[in-house]
């Protein structure tokens, strides 16, 4: 657990932690020494000459004073390290998130990350003050007391030495058992938390199909499974928890019985026996504080381990000597890509891209088309370096993206995603995130180009309209226009539109398609679209199929060539929005 604390604190947090550990250890040992000094005090008072007690009592008092000073420092140190812990962890997590490849953030990991950065950091920040101290006290105070017992009665000390490993083993065993049970329970809790969210988010569809709580079995199953896991934890964990208390009471009973019999056979004096018993009570009391902190320690350890795992996740390699792109052209050479784990995609083994080569000349518009799952979005992600290629290179302005500094790359490429994410704030906040200092006319022109100006005009609060949690208060089309305006305001020389207009109605899409055409005079454009209307006017059309580029050329060339694109085109002519006459025959 101490190791895990060092791991998550990193170098900047290790010094205060060192200091804290020294203070806490010192206080624990001094406490043990103080308890030990109680023995001569009591022996003297029980003996024939109680007036000899004062020197011993002074030593005891001095020791307690020193303990109090160290303990006071350790207590305030605990709070200080606690707030250092939260500060350092939050910053390290934020930095780590920005360094990790975007591909790392699958849905599950995103949820896990927000749990870690949210509640979990707050939970572990109490560890130094509330868990570490009892933990250290429960180890070092008893250890000191066992050493002291040797000076008092060797037999007792030997009995304690024999019992110590037994107690330790019982404690470890029950801890390990509980940890295992906790894991099972954590899984059940996670499942039921997911189901509760799913149930809440999907209320429209569940209601439309008549499945409210009584009818949606998956939720109830998850809740019951969680309750069962808890039951199991109670049933199986209880013996473990009881066994440690039982063991400590057994040790007490054993030593009480031995002490009384040694006294009866005359091998132990009355004062020493009584002093020993007082010491024994202190010892068992200190040991028990470990058991009491046990559950908290286990949880903290699990959490620290999860935090450590995320912080140790290898980030994207950064260029040692960053280079600056010479212009705004984009070039992919022999690019291959496959997901390295099964979490991101169902088809883990199959390469998503294989030998993709193309060039986007500066100030031109290229359209990328192809069936769902052909890897179009992956191409976009590689250009913005959300992921790195498995083979081949992506170059911007003649420079490998892996050699461009992250900030520089971000300044060069603007990407409008298929899934729009807006954060809770006003529309203006969401657009301005791209350029906080943008002048009003820059904002206005981004809004006009994206069609956001019409959204603003319709909304009573205009630019100040709150978008709600993840943009939930806006319609899909409105969200998409906010995200386009954001990308335009950023004014990067390379603009990648990944299905950027899928949620727009045809009217707005047509207007935006017109705007895109004017943008091509100034920017390098890559447009990924299912709607061929956006694509027709591109300078170059690339057809991506089965992970490779199968056709390239202008619209007219490709229609004439009679390949995949041409058949898309024909199918499109048939489908162009489904029609109801078909429905009624």
């Amino acid at each position: 657990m101490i190791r895990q604390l060092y791991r998550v604190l990193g170098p900047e947090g290790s010094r205060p932690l060192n200091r804290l550990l020294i203070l806490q250890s010192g206080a624990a040992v001094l406490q043990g020494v103080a308890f030990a000094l109680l023995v001569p005090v009591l022996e003297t008072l029980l003996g024939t000459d109680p007036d000899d007690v004062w020197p011993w009592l002074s030593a005891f008092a001095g020791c307690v004073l020193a303990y109090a000073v160290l303990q006071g420092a350790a207590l305030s140190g605990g709070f200080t390290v606690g707030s250092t812990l939260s500060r350092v962890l939050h910053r390290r997590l934020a930095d780590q998130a920005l360094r990790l490849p975007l591909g790392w953030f699958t849905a599950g990991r995103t949820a896990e990350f927000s749990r870690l950065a949210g509640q979990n950091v707050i939970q572990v920040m109490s560890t130094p003050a509330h868990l570490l101290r009892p933990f250290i006290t429960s180890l070092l105070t008893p250890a000191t007391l066992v050493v002291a017992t040797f000076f008092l009665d060797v037999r007792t000390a030997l009995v304690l030495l024999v019992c110590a490993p037994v107690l330790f083993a019982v404690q470890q065993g029950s801890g390990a058992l509980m940890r295992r049970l906790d894991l099972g329970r954590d899984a059940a809790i996670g499942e039921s938390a997911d189901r509760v969210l799913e149930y809440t988010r999907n209320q429209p569809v569940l209601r439309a199909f008549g499945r409210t709580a009584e009818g949606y079995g998956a939720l109830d199953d998850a809740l019951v499974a969680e309750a069962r896991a808890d039951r199991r934890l109670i049933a199986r964990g209880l013996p473990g928890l009881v066994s440690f208390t039982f063991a400590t009471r057994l040790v007490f009973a054993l030593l009480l019985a031995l002490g009384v019999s040694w006294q009866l056979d005359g091998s132990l004096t009355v004062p020493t026996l009584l002093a020993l018993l007082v010491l024994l009570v202190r010892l068992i009391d200190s040991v028990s504080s470990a058991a009491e902190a046990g559950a908290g320690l286990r949880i903290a350890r699990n959490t620290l381990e999860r935090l450590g795992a995320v912080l140790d996740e290898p980030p994207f390699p950064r260029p040692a000597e960053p280079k600056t792109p010479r212009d705004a052209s984009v070039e992919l050479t022999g690019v291959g890509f496959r997901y390295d784990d099964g979490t991101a995609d169902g088809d883990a083994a199959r390469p998503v891209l294989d030998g993709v080569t193309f060039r986007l000349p500066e100030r031109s518009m290229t359209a990328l088309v192809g069936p769902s799952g052909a890897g179009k979005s992956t191409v976009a992600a590689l250009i913005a370096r959300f992921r790195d290629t498995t083979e081949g290179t992506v170059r911007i302005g003649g420079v490998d993206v892996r050699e461009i500094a992250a900030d520089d790359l971000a300044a060069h490429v603007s990407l409008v995603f298929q899934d729009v994410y807006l954060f809770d704030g006003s529309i203006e906040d969401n657009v301005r995130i791209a350029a906080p200092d943008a002048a009003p006319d820059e904002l206005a022109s981004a809004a006009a180009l994206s069609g956001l100006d019409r959204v603003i005009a319709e909304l009573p609060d205009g630019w100040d309209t709150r978008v709600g949690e993840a943009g939930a208060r806006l319609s899909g089309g409105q969200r998409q226009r906010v995200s386009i305006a954001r990308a335009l305001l950023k004014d990067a020389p390379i603009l990648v539109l990944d299905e950027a207009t899928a949620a727009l109605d045809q009217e707005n899409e047509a207007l935006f398609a017109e705007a895109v055409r004017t943008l091509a005079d100034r920017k390098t454009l890559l447009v990924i679209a299912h709607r061929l209307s956006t694509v027709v006017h591109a300078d170059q059309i690339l057809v991506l199929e089965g992970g490779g580029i199968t056709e390239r050329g202008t619209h007219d060339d490709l229609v004439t060539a009679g390949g995949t694109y041409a058949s898309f085109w024909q199918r499109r002519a048939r489908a162009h929005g489904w029609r109801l006459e078909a429905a009624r025959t």
Partner: protein
Amino acid sequence: MKSQPPEPGPDPAAPDTAAGGTGTRVTPPPLRALAEPVRGRLAIAVGLQAVAALAGVVPFIAVSRIAERLTGESPADGDALWPLVVLACSSGLVALVCGTAAGALAHIADNDLQLALRRRLARHIGRLPLGRLTDRGTGEVKQAVQEDVSALHTLFAHTLLDVVAVLTAPVLALAYLLTVDWPLALVSVVPLLLGVFLFSRAMTGAAAQMAEFGAAVGRISVAAVEFASGIAVFKSFGRGHRAHERFVRATEGFAGFFSGWVRSTLVSSTAAILVVAPAVVLLLLSALGALFVTRDWMTGAELVPFLLLGPAVAAPMGVVGPRIQQIRAGQAAAVRITELLHAPTLPEPTDPAVPDGHHISMRGVSFTYDGRTDVLSGVDLDLAPGTVTALVGPSGSGKSTLASLLPRFHDVTAGTVTLGGVDLRDIPATELYRRVGFVLQDVRLLRASVADNIRLGRPDATDEEVERCARAARVHERITELPDGYATELGRTVTLSGGEAQRLSIARALLADAPVLVLDEATAYADPHSEALIQDALSALAAGRTLLVIAHRLSTVRSADRIVVLEDGRVTEQGGHDDLLAARGRYAALWEAQHTAGPFESDGTPHHRPATTGTGRAADDIREGSAR
């Protein structure tokens, strides 16, 4: 026996410390009302725990008696000592057994309570108006169902018993000490009193601080969720680190607040802890004891019980401190749970009626989400059985809202919606859902097998029926390509493309087989290949039903029985395609815009590079239209 040092002062580990009891008061007190079903068992657990705590003190009393016997005038023999040893050991065992039983009982009672509460909450959520869920987000629900119920667990299964133990044991210990030597017994209470005084000073204004702490933690949680979900946006738009400012600001605000709080209470909370620390208590007792013994006011043996039990008298401070926060957190959780449980549900019909036929009629329908702006106002609309009605209009005109009234996602603010002559609000939910189906634009698949996703509306459908609908929805082939076919679990490793998901949702609607169907034109995300398949699937679905279609593309609905143009929540035009074109109104303008801006003429033949003047004119028409 607990004599662990007390720990007042901020304890962030207290599970959810938000807003200590500041919620609205509900009578009876929420906590007691929620615990009602398990009150009996909790009371027994409390009794057992009290017995355990008392029995836990007995071994120390027994040892004190041994000390007394051993130092008496005539040295004691074994016959006098062994019964005391046996008493010490057996009472320790009683304490262990009773304490374990109390813990087990409280846990089991709480376990039942948790499940019952979570089920109650889930049932209730299923009856809340959807608006309430979208307004407050899903965070509130998750908080109540997961975190708050867990906070109650801490309270009922742990805190309650801890508090009982820590209040009973010291009383017996003190009572015994008073019989041994009352002046020193009184002194042994001093650390406790001093500790309480210092602790209450440290806790001055704690309620406000706790509320602030909870709020700060809440801000961090929200900012963390936002930061993680928006990471792609932050990475590509945040030059430097400016973009995730809100997260950084929330965490720094929190760290600053926490340090300030700690600093302001540090001296008194540290002093409170030290003054009841066992070593300090023992020093006080042994120093005074030494004084008393050397003055012959008491014997050395009489000091022994004080050294054994003295630290225990001061112990409550150590346990009560953090527990106060747990109790507050539990109360706050109970308030939130109760609030959610008392949130008004969509009213169930008092006088349920069964619709006669499937004619849908809307009269004077108005609706507002926020009570300020009407999304719909004065809408009159009839959907005759077996007809197709298309809703068209600019985005934000209220098409989706109007459609969402039919499956009663929302209730009208004014006016009525009737199905078969019966107001929707008078139709029992199950009857309504048997009659009205819905295919949403935003397809939601559940984390369940493909078959169960299709079966959503009819859990008892056979495999053959499921497959028949999947075939009709043109998704059967894709399903058979999945690793486990129909049994493939969706959402974990296998995800479907937008078009595939849409076809699956159509299969779902086909199987549910409701005579009235609300369709949101659902082809936006599909590639041309999928789009053709979706068209076939929808055609199968539409046959023979009453349809209300939210159309984004006019070509989709040109042959609908009736086209309804919605603008700013009002019906501005309605009629057949040809009538509306002839009327040269808004619909005609929209039609023209769509068919000059796109690459297709209305007959579907491609035409390249439309004259820019044409596009410009269409755009002007639209601007005029919306500026009207």
